[in-house]
């Protein structure tokens, strides 16, 4: 990556691999399908408007069972595994960053991912697993006692609301930061952006290149 050898602020730094971007796109499409069909299944007014409940329900179930597949396939990618491990690990600096009022100022140089991104990643993985498990209980409902079915519905319903809040927050953050979107779209970000948003990572890139 010759870009990383250049100190120019306009230099491009590799941030996400092709596999990671592919996973992100797949999950984006599936999440849009899941949330849209969920709304049509869940809110009475939208249900009546959309109708076709069996079709909507089937699309929701298929998209739900497909959702983990890109994540599992991506485990074959070294870049994905390395980023997953970066997201997993919280340093002392992450806690300081989370507690600070000026966390967006760049005063605390963060690594490739900030603590908010790490929390989002952990919440997302946890949510995918729980939604898949409770969704499967509801889909294969005859295998489970009534109380378990009701309990799975309870968890699936309420976690949905939390997931929607987090997805909206994630989308809002992306809409506010064009260079972050460029990073996920093209795989590269400017050195200037990296230095501002992920100072420690930018420094590692400069030294490591």
């Amino acid at each position, binding site marked *: 990556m010759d870009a990383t050898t250049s100190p120019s602020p306009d230099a491009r730094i590799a*941030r996400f691999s092709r596999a990671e971007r592919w996973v992100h796109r797949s999950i984006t499409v599936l999440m849009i399908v899941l949330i849209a069909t969920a709304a049509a299944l869940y809110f009475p007014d939208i249900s*009546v408007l959309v109708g076709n*409940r069996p079709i909507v329900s089937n699309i929701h179930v298929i998209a739900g069972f497909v959702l983990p597949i890109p994540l599992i396939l991506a485990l074959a990618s*070294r*870049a994905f595994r390395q980023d997953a491990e970066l997201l997993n690990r919280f340093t*002392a600096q992450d806690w300081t960053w989370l507690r600070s009022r000026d966390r967006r100022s760049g005063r605390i140089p963060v690594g490739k991912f900030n603590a908010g991104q790490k929390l989002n990643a952990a919440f997302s993985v946890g949510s995918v697993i729980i939604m898949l498990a409770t969704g499967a209980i509801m889909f294969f409902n005859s295998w489970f006692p009534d*109380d378990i*079915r009701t309990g799975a*519905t*309870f968890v699936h319903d309420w976690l949905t609301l939390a997931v929607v809040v987090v997805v909206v927050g994630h989308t809002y953050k992306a809409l506010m930061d064009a260079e972050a979107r460029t990073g996920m779209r093209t795989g590269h970000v400017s050195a200037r952006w990296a230095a501002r948003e992920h100072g420690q990572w930018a420094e590692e890139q400069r030294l490591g290149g």
Partner: protein
Amino acid sequence: MEPTLPSERNDSPVAPRASAPTSLADPPEAGAGPDSASPSGSPVGRRIVLGMIGLGAVGVLVGRQAQEAITSTVSATVPGLGSIVPAAGGFRIYTVTGGYPAMDPADYRLDVTGNVTTPLSLTMADLADLPQTSMTKDFQCVTGWRVDDVLWSGVLLSDVLAAAGASTTSSALRFFSFDGAYTESLTMEQALRDDVLVATSMFGEPVTREHGGPVRLYVAPMYGYKSLKWMSGIEVVDEVVPGYWEVRGYDIDAWVGASNGRDDEPIA
């Protein structure tokens, strides 16, 4: 979220530090520098995921009780929220046809046929001219959810049957829906109870389209699938003909708490 799990220091499957030399020798596809290939810090992400799975499992186990507590709290504090957010204690809207049939109340007819002296084709106005009855009772679905204290209004089924001169020696009734698919059944004895209603109103408003308007059945003591929506016909017959769900395995006598293998609190 505070992790409540035991330390995972000794069971890290990824062993990031050990993998660092390999990573350095073999550059990644993109992005990761030398330091980021040997991440430091504690695996909080994994603890969050495991903690969520634990909470999710507890939620599945106690979800029924938790949902009941939420339902009663919400209906006491924010009445009406449940009709917008089903998880807050509202109805879940089902249909067996995929659509939600629409009917202009002006065009509506309820046909009462079979073993009757006077076959009827009742308009909304005809129904309004019959004796009106209201009751505030729960709606219990066989899949587990329950909506407390719904105000139902309309005409007792027994009053409709009396108006048609139904033969009370006939043993059963069939009900038909204008969705073209759904049917239901009751015995004559069940149909003559004073908590079985031809409902034209729910919550003090005309029965809405999704709830089976303009006219639906409400069989208080039985699971919700007996309370046929979008009702278009009542036929007085000599023997019970199993309804839509009953030919698919549900109990024909669907008493709440005493059928379908469930132990819900009966609806008094």
